[in-house]
């Protein structure tokens, strides 16, 4: 293993200038995934740009409608502890708290988690259910892109070379909005999910409307449970949940691995989708 050229730009535009000059450079956020890939010998960067000193990248802000703006360099721990996040979307803080270990949460960032696009990771799946928008810094623009358009494939985002994730935004919730994140781990609490379910819906008197449901670790990206959503579209109650959840089997594409067979994961997807629906109305 050998060293690489290393930069810590102080602003987003300095970071973009560096990327323009070195299009092959790797961008570093918290550094957890990067260190693992480097040690495994899977990457051989010649230039690394760290965002750790970018001014304002680690802020958490709320707007007047309870919407959240979370800078790319915000750590998972900062989300878990943030009274601003807890006031608007405590379920998102709960999802961030399920990631790996205390130490990883202290170091790994929200932006890094989205950029890394590991389909088994927790934060991207929850952000998808909350319909989060990603602010992408392009050379001459900073558009908002829905997160499920950013997360395209295993370890692959829609970002073109030279583009950076600046922040994620979650719109404020309505008075009847409920959300839940369920993570099924087999071997230990700090493991990757075998299956995870993130759900958001409007709930009035035990009736679920406008559900948005995504599953993690059962496909190349967070998988949208469209069949389940369709079955619940006209307002569903608890007695409908079992049948609706069973439809998730066709919405997921799991792979057999150490955490279980594809068939087992499909079945667990059904079980945990039903549990997530019950969590929304409880």
């Amino acid at each position, binding site marked *: 293993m050998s*060293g690489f050229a290393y930069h810590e730009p102080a602003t987003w535009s300095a970071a973009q200038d560096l990327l323009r000059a070195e299009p092959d450079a790797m961008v570093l956020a918290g550094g957890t995934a990067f260190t693992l890939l480097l040690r495994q010998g899977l990457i051989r960067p010649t230039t690394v740009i760290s965002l750790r000193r970018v001014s304002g990248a680690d802020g958490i802000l709320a707007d007047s409608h309870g919407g959240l703006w979370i800078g790319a360099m915000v750590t998972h721990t900062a989300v878990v502890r943030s009274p601003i996040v807890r006031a608007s979307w405590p379920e998102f803080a709960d999802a961030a708290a399920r990631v790996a270990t205390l130490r990883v949460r202290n170091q790994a960032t929200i932006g890094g988690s989205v950029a890394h696009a590991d389909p088994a990771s927790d934060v991207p799946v929850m952000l998808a259910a909350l319909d989060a928008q990603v602010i992408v810094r392009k050379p001459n623009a900073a558009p908002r892109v829905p997160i499920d358009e950013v997360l395209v494939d295993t370890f692959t985002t829609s970002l073109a070379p030279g583009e950076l994730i600046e922040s994620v935004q979650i719109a404020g919730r309505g008075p009847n909005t409920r959300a839940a994140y369920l993570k099924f781990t087999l071997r230990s609490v700090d493991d990757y999910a075998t299956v995870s379910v993130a759900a958001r819906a409007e709930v009035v008197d035990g009736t679920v409307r406008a559900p948005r449901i995504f599953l993690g670790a059962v496909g190349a990206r967070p998988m949208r449970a469209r069949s389940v959503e369709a079955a619940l579209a006209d307002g569903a109650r608890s007695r409908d949940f079992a049948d609706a959840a069973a439809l998730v089997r066709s919405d997921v594409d799991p792979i057999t691995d150490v955490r279980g067979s594809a068939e087992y994961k499909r079945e667990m997807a059904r079980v945990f989708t039903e549990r997530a629906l019950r969590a929304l109305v409880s």
Partner: protein
Amino acid sequence: MSEQVIHFTVNGARQERRVATHRRLIDVLRDDLGLTGTKEGCSVGVCGACSVLVDGEVISSCLLPATYADGTSITTVEGLASDGELTPLQDAFITEGGFQCGICTPGQLITASALLAAHPRPSDEQIDEWMMSNLCRCTGYHGIRRAIHKAAAV
């Protein structure tokens, strides 16, 4: 160009080091500074043996790029005691059977120190939540829990 000068504090002492950019904090602590109390258990951030405090937060030193130490204040297990006086936590680990082989112990002490700083009188649940990712193959964890309760009572 593949080296970086970093400035940081370790156990209260200021350091200035030139480090190859691919190295991790644990490499600098153990190999450059001779602080071998921090152990490399799994190398992937899971076991907690390499835990250190960086600006008061528990970090896996096997996952932190050395360059990220720049501007920080780091505490390793060697920095817990002062002037040879063990902390109440370290004493409690001895009296309550908080270790056997000792390989996980530096990490346990670091995390438990951070826990007690955040929650001076932690409940069993808080202890389990904080300590759960410092793996111990010897003790079965009860001695660790007892030690933390004892240190909290001091």
